[in-house]
């Protein structure tokens, strides 16, 4: 038996396309909402939904925000 077999199996949830709220995106990336709003204003990321309250971000937006944050463009 492999030692890995003894570990519990974690079942996660898949983040579906356009399912992250502004708050979830901010928490996931550890950034401020106003900075994310400025990225949207510059069309660097494009959420679904017109009003800020109903914005939904995709996994691709998450990757992009983290990339920009990692290279220090803030």
């Amino acid at each position, binding site marked *: 038996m492999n030692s890995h077999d003894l570990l519990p*199996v*974690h*079942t996660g*949830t*898949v983040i579906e396309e356009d399912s992250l709220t502004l708050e979830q995106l*901010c928490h996931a990336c550890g*950034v*401020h909402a*106003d900075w994310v709003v400025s990225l949207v204003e510059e069309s660097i990321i494009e959420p679904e939904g017109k009003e800020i309250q109903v914005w939904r971000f995709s*996994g691709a937006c998450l990757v992009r925000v983290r990339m920009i944050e990692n290279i220090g463009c803030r």
Partner: protein
Amino acid sequence: MQYKDYYKIMGLSRTASQDEIKRAYRKLARKYHPDVSKEKDAEAKFKELGEAYEVLKDPQKRAAYDRLGSNWKAGEDFRPPPNWDEGFEFKGGGFSGGDAGAFSDFFEQLFGRAGFHPSGRAQHGSHLRGQDSHAKIYIDLEDSIRGSTRNISLSTPEMDAQGYVKVKHRSLNIKIPKGIKPGQHIRLSGQGGLGSGGGKPGDLLLEIAFNSHPLYRVSETDIYLDLPVTPWEAALGAKIEVPTPEGNVDLKIPANSRQGSKLRLKGRGLPGKMPGDFFVVLQIALPPANTERAKAIYRTMQQELDFNPRLPLGV
């Protein structure tokens, strides 16, 4: 505790745009800055202004503040209604400027007292949820086709009690859901950074990437296979056996197929509510002219077929 009308403090209506808020702050900050202002109570007004701006410039804090309603009068005795902040998770979400310690009881009651971090990065105060952590994992196409369990190793830099950074390794068995696509994320609740002061841990977000496959390419939910065919199979049509991740299938090649033609097997891509398709891209392979017989056949074709593939080039 007294209610504070942040819009009134900034001389704005409740419908002010984020730009108007920014402009009003700049104007009033110049007016009340204690170093330059000749106004009475400049320092108190400057602090009040900083606090109002801290809330109104942040769309989440502003939305939550707006939810308190507009019937409150400045200075009125105030208690936040129960569950007033339901659906907003910004506590400790960071203070990007100003002296957080100078904010009023009203502000603290609503938004908590989180630490101020000079970079402006969200900082967690007491009793707060841990940071979400991220990792990219590589899986095989077959893991997504059938669903599987994978063991992954994660290295996480952590600060020890002495303040030194140490890399902590851990191993996790995770379930790969059937039909997951490259670029999608799996969220594992509670597997992220530790919370502070008894706060819940953050989540672990795993970004999915696929290992390159010797036969197939994946694009979104579609799978592509480059299929070598002979010139006569392409020209005359044929029924040939084609590998797919779920086993071999018989595929009919239509007559007069061209190099690069795409044939679609509907619904045989990545599984899911909207399953992807499987595309076969024809690659016409030429038999080598390495025997007298083969050369004779090519010469016959040369003589018998009126064929100039460079006609579109005008030569």
